[in-house]
């Protein structure tokens, strides 16, 4: 095959892209288009392919606005208040355009602010399908009103909303404190829909011409300064980037609003960016950009857009956590500035001592290209509350099949059935567990998804049955670009049903992707999604079986020859422009795919779908990975803040390609990456076509043993991971969390992103430095203790602990006060471990207390939901007694799993241990390790679903 790769344009294109294709005879054509885009031989993103704010006309216009000159005024006389909805008109005094402000108090301590044109020329896009329901409201009441403004009661906790009239401004107060202000810097800007100059002459609406509405008042002065005649600003009605022209038939439509957060120095979220956990100020640089893009060989530590966008930001200080959810699917830029940025700790201390300090404050500004302003302000106050607030709006993490929390083996590409079989056997030969093996684009017949290459995969069912016999599973890739080929069923059906996205002229939009010329199904259409879902039926997707799951890649969507490697903004999805819906396209692809998997099982089985592009709400449909990273130490490091940021805004099921996608990892890097990945939610190794093979046993017996060990650690902890995902699914709590989520008052935790928590009870500090001899982990909690999970050594909280490391070390600590159930009998797949017994790891707090949970169900169906078939137990250790009690008395599920062992860390030696169950008391054998104070109860033997108490006497 590689003979195809001679140094021609084709290869340039191939090697320079995530999924470079190799053997397509049409690629020659493709290369002509792509070579100019991708011909960058050094390893780094070609920044020139992607816009800066300055190159994005609306961003440039908006960013040119200066604060403090808001032309907007609230027309208080237009105020209308129904029970829970307040409306009020705003006027832009420069152009007299009226806006309509809607305010809602939402249940659960949230406020929704919507701003739209009062009478737009035509409707503006409002993002559907993100909110799980119309959010329930609570009554609002007017406390006082005068010419300057209105004071509204927000009900709970003495909260007030102050509407100031001139200039328009909103302040949310709690007691005397301002929690958050809107338009306090006067950067509200709403480009109203207008007629183009050509047509404007005929239209009688003699609108004042302006660029950004708020900017109007400056126009005169500016013109004089610039000495420019009045001429239409660039990019209002047409914009060209590189060779691509965006026709902008609707003209300027952007919107912007600023938020001030007094007392806040730390803001997080707005993924996806390859950047630190704590967001940086953007003064002097580009804003953080949210625009789903297929970025080839992305760079780290900058605000460039990546594959997914979740327009949610969290603000945190020791007193409160809040969130801002900006519901807009168009290209969005977020500016952050802070009055304390750049001050040293000493400087801040000096301010404090001298009492001269202004209160720290973070100012945020959101800019989107189209749509309306629709903001949800989540007022916390606790981190967990913000998570549940956001979950109440957009839903929680889907509850994944247990097996999908195991280890995934992926490569671009496993060449053929024989290859799959031998890799599968390799795992058994080396006694390494895995649950899923993956097939990338080469498995399909000419990149026609839903098909199999007849030479390489002639008997897919035979292959899948072989995996099923080993109780293992497979994922095949199904991308949303559809090969334009009249011999391809999927293409023909989409064409005949008229389901393709259209270009501006109303013809089917076509672009280049893996198969060559491709169409893009309009996933925004519910009928299209229903049809797509039906394609996953076993009789439609030939060769599929119930152990075959799906991977949606390239769903930004990636268009090799499109502007910024994506779809033209003037392409059409029904009546809406791609511009309006861009960031939600990927969500719809995953939504329809997940729905297809549910439907094929008659609604019984949980789906598993991995996506690269995502939006707010994507958490409901499956897993996300951080795209095409590289085999570099910095990429290993960045996997932590990238997944932490996603977890904060709802997406818990996150992982990075273990080993790094591009390039070949050193053995040390590969081992460290397995150690890190084993403690991240989505655990998949993946590799580029051009890399050498790197199955875990290819690096010598010592390294095989290291990798085996850490994968086994993962499998032993699957009960804990599963329970955390159940919790995430029920409550919205992130599975992998920054420390500050659980230690919100400990400022030392606020910027930590080289270690993290899994749930509340495991703290992981992966080794991410080459040649490391030790790491310094921060153990939080002044009153707490932490136990090294490998040695059971106890350490005090609130300290920086230096931990010497070797290549086998992965520093992990269990919080004193927690109980973690494990299955220490690791087998070749998670399904094989279904009925295995549990070992309880009881880590005592200094007060000799601990608690935890145990969740068990069938691991794969919706019966936990539809039939309450699960076991949910509370485990509590107090007063020298460990008790299991039922958290769901009306649930019914039988398990044959039992409790084989209990380890109590930090215990003292009892004289006797008794098991109390069914009214009987039986003695239990035990051992006590004095050096580490570990008490081991031997084979108490009770069923994992039973009520019982173990008494230490």
């Amino acid at each position, binding site marked *: 095959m*590689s*003979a195809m790769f001679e140094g021609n344009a084709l290869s340039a294109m191939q090697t320079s892209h995530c999924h470079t294709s190799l053997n397509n005879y049409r690629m020659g054509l493709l290369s002509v288009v792509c070579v100019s885009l991708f011909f960058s*031989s050094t390893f780094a993103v070609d920044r020139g392919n992607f816009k800066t704010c300055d190159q994005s006309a609306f961003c440039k216009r908006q960013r040119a606005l200066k604060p403090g000159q808001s032309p907007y005024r609230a027309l208080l006389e237009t105020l209308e208040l129904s029970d829970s909805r307040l409306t009020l008109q705003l006027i832009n005094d420069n152009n007299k355009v009226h806006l309509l402000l809607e305010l809602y108090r939402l249940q659960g301590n949230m406020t929704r602010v919507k701003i739209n044109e009062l009478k737009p020329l035509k409707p503006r896009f409002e993002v559907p399908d993100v909110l799980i329901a119309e959010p329930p409201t609570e009554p609002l009441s007017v406390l006082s009103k005068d010419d300057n403004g209105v004071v509204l009661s927000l009900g709970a906790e003495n909260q007030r909303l102050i509407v100031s009239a001139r200039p328009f401004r909103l302040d949310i107060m709690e007691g005397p404190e301002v929690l958050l202000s809107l338009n306090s810097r006067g950067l509200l800007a709403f480009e109203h829909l207008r007629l183009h100059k050509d047509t404007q002459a005929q239209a009688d609406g003699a609108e004042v011409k302006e660029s950004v509405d708020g900017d109007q008042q400056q126009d005169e002065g500016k013109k004089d300064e610039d000495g420019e005649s009045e001429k239409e600003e660039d990019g209002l009605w047409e914009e060209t980037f590189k060779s691509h022209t965006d026709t902008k038939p609707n003209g300027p439509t952007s919107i912007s609003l600023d938020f001030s957060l007094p007392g806040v120095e730390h803001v997080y979220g707005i993924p996806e960016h390859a950047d630190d956990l704590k967001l940086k100020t953007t003064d002097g640089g580009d804003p953080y950009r949210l625009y789903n893009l297929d970025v080839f060989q992305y760079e780290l530590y900058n605000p460039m857009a990546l594959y997914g966008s979740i327009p949610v930001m969290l603000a945190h200080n020791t007193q409160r956590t809040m969130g801002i959810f900006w519901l807009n699917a168009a290209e969005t830029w977020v500016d952050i500035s802070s009055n304390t940025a750049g001050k040293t700790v000493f400087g801040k201390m000096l301010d404090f001592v001298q009492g001269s300090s202004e209160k720290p404050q973070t100012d945020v500004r959101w800019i989107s290209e189209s749509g309306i302003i629709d903001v949800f302000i989540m007022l916390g106050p606790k981190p967990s509350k913000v998570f549940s607030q956001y979950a109440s709006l957009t839903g929680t993490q889907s509850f994944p099949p247990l097996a999908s929390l195991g280890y995934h083996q992926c490569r671009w590409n496993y060449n053929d059935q*024989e290859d799959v079989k031998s890799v599968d056997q390799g795992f058994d030969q080396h006694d390494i567990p895995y649950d899923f093996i993956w097939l990338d684009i080469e498995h399909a017949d000419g990149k026609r998804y839903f098909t199999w290459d007849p030479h390489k995969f002639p008997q897919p069912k035979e292959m899948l049955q072989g995996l099923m016999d080993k109780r293992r599973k497979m994922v095949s890739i199904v991308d949303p670009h559809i090969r334009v080929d009249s011999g391809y069923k999927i293409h023909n059906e989409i064409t005949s049903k008229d389901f393709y996205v259209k270009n501006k002229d109303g013809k089917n939009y076509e672009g280049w992707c893996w198969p060559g010329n491709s169409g893009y199904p309009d996933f925004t259409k519910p009928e299209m999604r229903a049809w797509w879902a039906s394609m996953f039926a076993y009789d439609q997707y030939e060769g599929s079986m119930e152990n075959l799951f799906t991977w949606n890649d390239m769903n930004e969507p990636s268009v090799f020859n499109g502007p910024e490697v994506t779809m033209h903004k003037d392409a059409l999805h029904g009546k809406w422009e791609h511009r309006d819906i861009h960031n939600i396209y990927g969500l719809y692809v995953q939504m329809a795919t997940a729905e297809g998997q549910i439907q094929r099982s008659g609604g019984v089985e949980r789906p598993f779908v991995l996506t690269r592009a995502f939006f707010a709400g994507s958490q409901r449909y499956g897993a996300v990975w951080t795209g095409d990273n590289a085999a570099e130490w910095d990429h290993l490091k960045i996997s932590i803040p990238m997944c932490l940021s996603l977890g904060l805004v709802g997406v818990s099921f996150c992982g990075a390609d273990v080993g790094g996608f591009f390039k070949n990892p050193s053995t040390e890097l590969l081992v460290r990456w397995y150690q890190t990945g084993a403690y991240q939610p989505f655990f998949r190794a993946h590799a580029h*076509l051009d*890399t050498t093979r790197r199955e875990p046993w290819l690096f010598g017996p010592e390294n095989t043993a290291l990798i085996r060990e850490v994968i086994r650690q993962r499998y032993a902890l699957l009960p804990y991971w599963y329970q955390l995902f159940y919790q995430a699914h029920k409550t919205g709590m992130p599975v992998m969390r920054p420390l500050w989520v659980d230690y919100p008052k400990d400022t030392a935790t606020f910027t930590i992103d080289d270690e993290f928590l899994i749930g509340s009870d495991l703290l992981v500090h992966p080794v991410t430095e080459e040649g490391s001899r030790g790491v310094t982990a921060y153990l939080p909690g002044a009153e707490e203790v932490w136990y090294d999970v490998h040695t059971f050594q106890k350490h005090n909280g609130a300290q920086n602990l230096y931990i010497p490391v070797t290549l086998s070390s992965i520093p992990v600590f269990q919080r004193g006060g927690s109980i973690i159930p494990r299955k220490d009998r690791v087998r070749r797949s998670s399904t094989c*471990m279904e009925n295995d*017994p549990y070992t309880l790891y009881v880590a005592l707090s200094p007060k000799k207390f601990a608690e935890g949970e145990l969740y068990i169900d069938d691991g794969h169906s919706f019966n936990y939901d539809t039939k309450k078939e699960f076991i949910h137990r509370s485990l509590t250790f107090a007063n020298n007694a460990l008790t299991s009690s039922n958290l769901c008395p009306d649930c019914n599920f039988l398990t044959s799993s039992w409790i084989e062992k209990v380890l109590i860390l930090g215990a003292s030696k009892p004289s006797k241990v008794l098991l109390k169950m069914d009214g009987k008391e039986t003695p239990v054998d035990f051992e006590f390790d004095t050096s580490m104070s570990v008490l081991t109860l031997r084979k108490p033997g009770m069923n994992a679903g039973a009520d019982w108490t173990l008494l230490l006497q």
Partner: protein
Amino acid sequence: MTCLHLLLTLVFAVSLGTPVEIQRPRGVPLTKKQFYEESKPFTCLDGSRTIPFDRVNDDYCDCKDGSDEPGTAACPNGSFHCTNAGYRPMFIPSSRINDGICDCCDTTDEYNSGAKCENTCKELGRKEREVLQKMAEITKEGFLLKQQLIEEAKKGQQEKQSKVTDMQENKKQLDEKVEALRTVKETAEQPEKEAKERHLKAWEEQKAAIRLEKDKAKMAETFLELDDNEDGFVSVSELQSHAELDPDADGTLTEIEAQGLMGGAEQVDTSTFESVWPKIKDKYHSEVSREEADISLCLCVVQAQPTIKTPEKTHEDEEAMPPYDADTQALIDAAQKARDDFEEAEKALREMDDQIRNIEKELSFDFGPDAEFTYLYSQCYELTTSEYIYRLCPFNRVSQKPKYGGSETNLGTWGSWSGPENNKYLLMKYEQGTGCWQGPNRSTTVKLTCGKETVVTSTSEPSRCEYLMEFTTPAVCQEPANIDPSPHDHVEL
């Protein structure tokens, strides 16, 4: 949930249809039975601790080495022995006990998982015997073939060796012959050279005389031409009409200049013209052929300096050298023959050198301990897949060519044997093939297995640009042990 009922079980082993009951804990191989005595406490096989015997196979791991749970999955590092009567006994990791997957053909690993396993040992045993038998046959025949190959190779090698020896002997003679002929040649060439030189010299002299004659004639002719008034004198003014004779090349031949040319005289007669002639003859243009001269002047200007003389030469040398006289010719012919003889001999020597070198190169290859791979030398073997034709030329190169047109790609040239230490002749490595774009140079590993035929059986590209080729040859067939085709009937009982 306890598993007391599993503590001690009866294992039924079937040997040649006769059931024999062997009592021992589940998962224990017969060789270790003595360590598991029901009446005594059990000591972990690593000696780390002693436990009551009822804790053996009680589904709880007490021994660090896993030896107390040979029949359950309780220990992470345990192993389970299946007797697999009718087939071969084996150990599996204890994590595969009751995992729902049938690993032991006698089903003993899945005694409590609900997995529906069938005892397939007999069938497997039969198949294995068949396979073994077939393999044995192949090995046997292959080994016979190998013996032949070795014979042939040895013969061939000896032949080649003796050929080389012979050739080297011949070469010596040839060397001598060449030297002798060289002497003959050189001896013959000396008189030839002298005769030729003589001939040439004579001719040169003759040519000079002719040239002098010609010059004189031309001078006379020129004198007549210049002597416009035919008074028997060439005067200054007559000379002046030939501007091309202008010594300072300013375009005009002044009177003084003309006079200068004439050695200060006003006029010269034919005899004194002899002293003027050398000064003007190079520049002088005949009035008769002036037009022609203009053109040639033109050409001279245009043409580069070194070529200026060529026309003159051809003009003058048109007169060919006269043929050698008979004596000289005889000398020449003799020398030529000596030369031809010498060159022929030298060529023969070179060819022989090449042959020797080739054979020596071939002999220098590592064709295996018994030279059994010799027959592969200078052969090529092809395999056609759906897309490509792969070609293996052992000890030379591996290549790939698209089936439907396109150029050939080098997948590696012969590198070395690279099998495991105990038998490096199981793998061949071909390296430094065509470079991959932004990647390594292509390379191919050829895996050799015993077979009657010499065939490429498969190719694959497990990693990009790293090819794997499977190749059968009798040359790797091992001497069959005194084969009992059913070695597993006598299971350890």
